[in-house]
Every structure is written in C-alpha cells, then in structure tokens.
C-alpha cells in the first residue's frame, strides 16, 4: 500500500509545485495548501501504513496483543495539520488585504517594497 500512496503523494507534490509557479497569489496559496497536504500524507506513509488495527491496548493487557497501526505519525500529522491550517488562514487574509491595498494579485506587479528603477547610491567618496 505504501507504493500506491507514494505515487499519490508525488502527484500532490507535482500539483502543488505547479500551482506555486503561478504569478497569482491565489494560485500560490492553493498550491501551498496542496503541498501541505502532500507533506502530511508523506509523514503518515513514512510511519508505515497498517489497516484496521487501531493502537488500543486491551483492558486485560499491558502491551498490545500484536502489531498495530503506528500512532506517532498520526500525532505528528495532527500537529502539522493544525499548524498548516492556521498559516493558510493567516496568509489568505494577508493576501486579501494586500489585494485591497495594492490592487493586484500578480506578483510581478507587487513592487511596492522593491520599486523598479531605484536611484543608485551616491557614487564615490
């Protein structure tokens, strides 16, 4: 199953990177979300996939009866999902505010911080 997932993750990465190469902030942000999900699936798959055996220890035992699904990647992915979601929310608001202020979402035209054709510093001493 890991092999199938690897192909899927590869597709997610490809789509994410393709969208991030766009000049439009909206596309870039969607690309980042997809990239984030690709990373989450990657962590999940890297922890090896085990179906239908939840990591629950039976009441009468101290250790699991047999091999179970690995709970650690799930905890890591949960952390990563929360973080990437909150970042996405922030960047979405930021992109909208920037669009309001600058009137464009084309990164080539976003030159307020680094205007084109700035004067050179004074020459000589």
């Amino acid at each position, binding site marked *: 199953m890991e092999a199938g997932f690897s192909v899927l993750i590869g597709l997610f990465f490809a789509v994410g990177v393709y969208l991030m190469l766009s000049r439009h902030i909206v596309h870039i*942000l969607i690309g980042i979300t997809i990239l984030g999900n690709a990373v989450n699936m*990657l*962590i999940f798959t890297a922890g090896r996939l085990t179906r239908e055996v939840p990591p629950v220890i039976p009441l009468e035992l101290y250790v699991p009866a047999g091999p179970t699904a690995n709970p650690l990647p799930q905890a*890591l992915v949960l952390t990563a999902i929360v973080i990437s979601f909150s970042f996405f929310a922030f960047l979405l608001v930021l992109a909208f505010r*920037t669009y309001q202020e600058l009137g464009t979402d084309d990164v080539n035209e976003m030159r*307020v*911080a680094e205007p084109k054709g700035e004067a050179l510093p*004074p020459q000589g001493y």
Partner: protein
Amino acid sequence: MAGPSVSVDLSAAMQTVPVQLADWLVVAPSILTIVGGMLCLMSRKNIALAPKLGLFFLGLLVISNLLLLAEVLKRGVITMVMGNWLPPFGIAFTVDALGATLALVAAIVAFAAGLYASITIDNSGRRYGFYPFLLLLMTGVNGAFLTGDVFNLYVWFEVLLISSYGLLVLGNDRIQLDGTVKYGILNLIGTNLFLIATGLLYGQLGTLNMADITMKVQESGVSGPLMTIAVLYFLAFTMKAAAFPVNFWLPSSYHTPRIVVAAVFAGLLTKVGIYALLRILVMLMPAARAELADVIAWVAALTMLTGVIGALAQSDVRRLLGYLVISGIGSMLAGIAMGSVLALSGTVFYAVHSILVMTALYMAAGLMAAMAGSYDLRRLGGLYGASPVLAGVFLVLALAVAGLPPFSGFWPKVMLVDAALTLGWNWLAASILVTGFLTSLAVGRVWIYAFWRGGPEGTVDGGSVSLPGGGVLLAGAGGQSTAAVWVPIGILTALIVLFGLQPEWMMEVSSRGASGLIDPVGYLRSVFGGGA
C-alpha cells in the same frame, strides 16, 4: 481499572526520581515567555501597562537564561523530559553550551528591543500586540535553541514564524503588506521542506529524538536516503538562514516593518536557521555534512559575496543592512563547510557577534532616521553635528560588522580564516577576507555620507544644515526622555566592545559548544544516562 496483577518495571520507560529544581531552568524560558505573552495579550488594551509587563518578562527571561548557561557550564549538558517519559519515547529538552549561549544572547537582544520599542512603537502598535508577539517570538526562538527533538524543533520554528508574521505586518502599511506576502510564502515553503525531511527521517530511522538519531546514524552510516534527507535539511535551513540562492525573501521584507522589529529579525531569525544547521547537519549527520562540504563552501562564499555586493548597491540604509545580514550568514556557513572544532567555534562566535551587531545597527539606523528624517543615503548628512555620540557608536558598530579589531567581529573572522588556512581551504579564506574589505567599504560609505558630510546632497562644501528631526522614530512619544533608545544601543555596543577586548571567555564557550557538536558524548550521556 481491572488489569492483571503483574508488576511492570516502569523505570525502563519513565523517569521515577523527581526532577531537580535546577532542571526546571531548561523549560523556564518557554514557560516564562508563553505566560508573559498570554498576560500581555489579555491586557493589550491597556497601553500603559504593555511595555512594563513585556519588559518584566523579558528581564526574567534574561536572568533565567543566564542561570541556565551557568548551570550548563558547571554541569555539562542538561536534559529534561516531558511527562517523565524517558527518551526516545518522550519529548526531551536537551541544553548544551551552544544552545544555552545563543538563548542568552537572544534574550539580551529581545530585552534591548523591548526597551527600544517602549518609545518607538506607538499606541496603535501596542494595541495590536507588539509585546505579545515579541514574547511569543522569543518562545519559538528559545524553544528551538533548547529542544532535543527534531519534530519539536519544527513546532518551535512555526511558533516563531507565526509571531514574526504578526510583528512584520504591525502597522499595516502598503509596503509592509507587500513585504510580508513574500516573507510569509517563502518561509512557509521553507518550513514545509523541513517537515518533509523530518517525515522521511522518521520513516528511515523510526525516531525523532536527536540523541537517538545521532546514535542510529552512527551505526548505519550514510546511505542514499539519508543523504537525500541531509540535502533536504540543508535546503530548508539555508532558506531559513537566507543563504544564496534562496534568500530573496530577506531583502524584500526586512526594510518594511517598524525599525525595532527589523532589528529583532535581523538579529535572531536567520541565526536560528544557522543553529538548526549546526545541530542537524553537524551533530546528527556528520558523514553527510562531510560529503556536502564542497557544496556548503560554495554556497557560503556566494552568500557572503552576493550579500556584500548587494549592500554596496543600496542607498536605503535598512536595505543595505539587510544585505549585510545575508553576508554574515555566508561566513557562518563557511565554518560549517570546514567542520573542524576551530571553524565551528568561529561559526558560533560569529553567530553571537552577528546577533548583537545587526540588532544594534538597525537600532542606530532608526536613530539616524529620527534625526535626519530619512533612511536614504542621498538625504542623510550632517549627523555628526547633530549627535557626535551616535557617530561614535555607529563607527564602532561599522568596524565590528566589517570584522576589524578591536571589536567582536574580528575574533570569529580570525578563527574562521585560521581554520580555512589550516585545512587548505585557501579560496574560502580569501573570500572571507574580500568580504570583510567590501563590508568596510559599504558601512564606511554610510558613515561618511550620513555623519561626516555637512548635510544632504546639494549642501555646499563646508556648509551645514539644521536637521528636520522628530518625525519617524519617536512618533507618539510625547515628552518622554530618549533614554529608552540609548540604553539598549549602549548595552549591545558595550557587549560588542567587551567581546572584542576580552574574547577569551566567548572563545572558550564557543569551542565547548563546537566540540560538543563534533563529539556529542556528553549530549548522549545526558539523554540516555551513563551507558551511552
């Protein structure tokens, strides 16, 4: 709970003895800043209280980190595990001389910035949460320096990143929004790369504890997948550290926020990336670092040279300083490329020096703009007449950043060049020296134009002008004394002069940190007990 009545030996997985009081110092920085940030956030409408509360907790942070460093120097590496789960099961905080030193310097810089901000950040900036953001930024920075777990390191990176977004847009100007979009997106991609590498590393080794990873990598040697992971980490952290060619977020954003925010960022953020490189590449995967040494050296040389050439081409003082931050990163990377104890000590010393000097330079630039009304070299001038003290301080800082004696920048450069010549990296030594020369040209020009000449462009020779003053820096500081901007610059400059004149102590601490990275016996013993 009806369980079988067998006895289970908990001591194999859990710490059973109570934690020593001194060990709490390991997590104290994170706790202090989170609690302080929370209190500041709750009282953020109370603009008179905000700076007092913020400075109180930043002061506590300095004291706590000072005690922590003293404890580490006395006892060696200290480990504290969360929830008493022994490593590699629980998350461990492991502090060595390197982490504790950087945490202390970071705390001092944050305190200085908090003080500087108390009159340079206006009321609306306070209301929108400058102090909560600064404290939470310090949570992330300290956590990153002190943690002993790779995934935990990622979490602290995200904590500092989200706080830095808040600080960067504080003020909501058009230029800030533009800068933050670029900073935000590129840094988020950088941390995603970090997360990818961490996921793959876990898949490869099945552990996230740094000490455990170190041992497992030592046993298994370098394999193809491990090399890939090392390269991914290298890319992610050089992106964070703003090394060429993945540094375009820095020059497009660092000149946009309030000057004190730029000062904190220039001091701290890129150095966290360097710290992570030292920890992951040098300590965890030494063999992979050796394989990558040539690549790192090229990146280092290109970073320092493109950085300083960028600085030469700027007329805005803040942008010029942003390029000097990049240039300094190159020198630190050079030490990582060489990898000997001397070279790595040079990197650590340089990081400490760079944190202090870049913050101080941005703060001094803020004062210059407050007096002359502009950051543009063409419009600056006559500042020597306005404030000879500032001229003197700026000259000290300029010589320090260029690596000239007798200031703190000189010694790490000596160590790096010495290491390069010993190991036969002659071209790397040459590029460090050329960079130093070009840096002195760049900052020397700022000093000559801003301080030495009589007035801005167009002033006749020998004439002088009265400066517009006021406006930019001290907005909303009605009638307060300006001590709050002079004291932080004074503290930082004093440290720079002190480390320049008395470098032995800092050299010894850096060399302890560096040898702990190359031969992490103490680190492993602290995490796993006497057996390792």
